[in-house]
């Protein structure tokens, strides 16, 4: 085994070595623990890094410095935030349904962590190599709606309930284009297994990889997936469920201290996992972006792509304003859903044609409805100088 391969498989080898150390009867349990504990440690750490990255990034976008007081360049800010969240008083409203109120963040974080079970974070690095991994991911993801409902209802607060209703309506609406655009990739890969989807995209022509995002249908599906993923993880510009200016953090409103931190963690972990699925489905998973870079360990590529995706999410958050509820729903049902079906058709065309025609056909199948729909959506938007009736 060459050193490159060892670097690539270092965690797998480490796990086998550690499992080999313990008695045979304990081996399954230890194997599970060794798989689960790194996931539980690494992704919350990534969450801590993301919070500081997000705050600094948003600051830079708005021509500010961002937090820079805690430690050198403010890198200890997540630690300070964590200490603050842990030491805060945990307030439960007197009227709240205490049991449900307690279980909502627990259920959310549990489900979100469960979704990490199938993510391939490197070659041979998935906790469970499930035959229908994509379906598992979406099934678990849909369970978070229940947690959101529990949080919103149990708080006995109208803002919490409004936020939960908004969140659930949004998640249900955007789940459809999310899954449909994933189905396009599944259709071409011919499997629901995430590892196999990655290996299907493994080849290179020249130095460029065969990732699905570099095909016409794949690019469109990737964009649809990312937009839906943004909505699904309640991030700006789809952050209506927690719109601070109108419903004061939505279903979080009655949560404080550690439970609030759990919700926050759950939201970010959801974003990471859905980014990881996007990477796996469209961006070649743990594969290198150029054929001459294949010597870099696969898990490093996975995390590099993940951080890039996170940065893109931050960039979008810093750029776009929040949508209105009717705009949100119109966008989901009148644009995303038809486009997802169109992309599905385009992927089918790609599947059954050959040579340069497949590029032309699948490109046209995507672009014509897109410009059509886009024209239709833009035509009733007459942008003109705003008239103020009373201010003048």
């Amino acid at each position: 085994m060459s050193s490159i391969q060892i670097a690539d498989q270092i965690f797998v080898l480490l796990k086998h070595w550690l499992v080999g150390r313990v008695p045979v009867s304990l081996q399954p349990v230890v194997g599970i623990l060794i798989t689960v504990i790194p996931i539980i440690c690494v992704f919350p750490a990534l969450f801590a890094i993301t919070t500081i990255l997000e705050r600094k990034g948003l600051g830079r976008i708005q021509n500010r410095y961002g937090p820079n007081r805690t430690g050198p360049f403010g890198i200890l800010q997540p630690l300070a935030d964590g200490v603050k969240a842990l030491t805060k008083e945990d307030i439960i409203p007197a009227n709240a349904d205490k049991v449900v109120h307690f279980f909502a963040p627990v259920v959310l974080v549990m489900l979100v962590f469960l979704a990490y079970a199938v993510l391939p974070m490197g070659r041979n690095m998935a906790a469970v190599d499930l035959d229908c991994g994509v379906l598992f991911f979406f099934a678990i993801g849909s369970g978070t709606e229940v947690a959101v409902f529990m949080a919103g209802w149990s708080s006995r607060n109208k803002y919490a309930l409004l936020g939960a209703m908004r969140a659930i309506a949004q998640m249900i609406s955007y789940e459809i284009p999310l899954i449909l655009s994933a189905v396009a990739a599944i259709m071409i890969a011919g499997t629901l297994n995430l590892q196999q989807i990655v290996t299907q995209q493994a080849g290179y022509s020249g130095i460029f990889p065969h990732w699905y995002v570099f095909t016409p249908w794949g690019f469109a599906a990737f964009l649809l997936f990312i937009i839906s993923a943004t909505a699904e993880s309640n991030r700006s510009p789809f952050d209506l469920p927690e719109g601070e200016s109108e419903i004061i953090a939505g279903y979080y409103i009655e949560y404080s201290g550690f439970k609030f931190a759990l919700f926050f963690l759950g939201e970010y972990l959801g974003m990471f996992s859905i980014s990881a699925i996007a990477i796996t489905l469209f961006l070649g998973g743990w594969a290198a972006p150029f054929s001459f870079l294949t010597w870099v360990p696969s898990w490093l590529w996975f995390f590099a792509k993940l951080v890039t995706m996170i940065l893109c999410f931050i960039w979008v958050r810093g750029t776009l304003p929040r949508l209105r509820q009717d705009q949100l729903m119109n966008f989901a049902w009148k644009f995303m859903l038809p486009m997802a079906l169109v992309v599905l058709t385009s992927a089918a065309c790609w599947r059954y044609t050959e040579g340069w025609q497949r590029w032309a056909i699948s490109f046209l199948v995507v672009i014509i409805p897109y410009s059509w729909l886009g024209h239709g959506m833009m035509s009733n938007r007459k942008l003109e100088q705003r008239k103020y009736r009373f201010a003048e």
Partner: protein
Amino acid sequence: MLGGGILKGLAVTARNVVEGFVSKERLTTVQYPEERVPQVEATRDFPFLVFDGEDPMAGLRCVACQICEKECPPKCIYIDKSSDKKPDATGKPQFYPARFDIDISVCMSCQICVEVCPFEAIKMDVEFELSTNDRFGGLLYDKHKLAKSNEYYNHVHPTEAAAVDTKLAVERAKAAARAAAATQPKPAAVSPAPESGAQA
């Protein structure tokens, strides 16, 4: 094309980020304790008492006339007039404040006390870092804490202080001349001198 505006917006924010690292002018934030914006000359926050000479208590211009105490809208000034008279900076015997307190937690920086003072004795300070652990005693300033020298006044408000100084010098010269004139013809009035000083 649908989505063009989003790309434009993304480009704008990307430019913000990059230029923020390249040019310092982009980032308008002043890193306060380390960097400070220079104060403009007309800055004012809370009043202080001006004294002439070396000894703060001996050189206070304040004669405890209590006009500022009466005029103060939030009533944050408290003055006890002395029962005896002390010579002021020019050597004339005057009343002096036995106690002069300003509660700057109540003061609203309106500058009315400065405007009504006939003796140029109370002026506005520029010191703003006044945080303290003791919210009652720590923000109640007595006359020892309030007394600041004329040089300090000249330092914080140069133009205004120069005008005040020349005005005072002229008045004092007039008063001195009048006093000199009064010493030669014996029966002339001594009393108008402080009055004219007060009205000037």
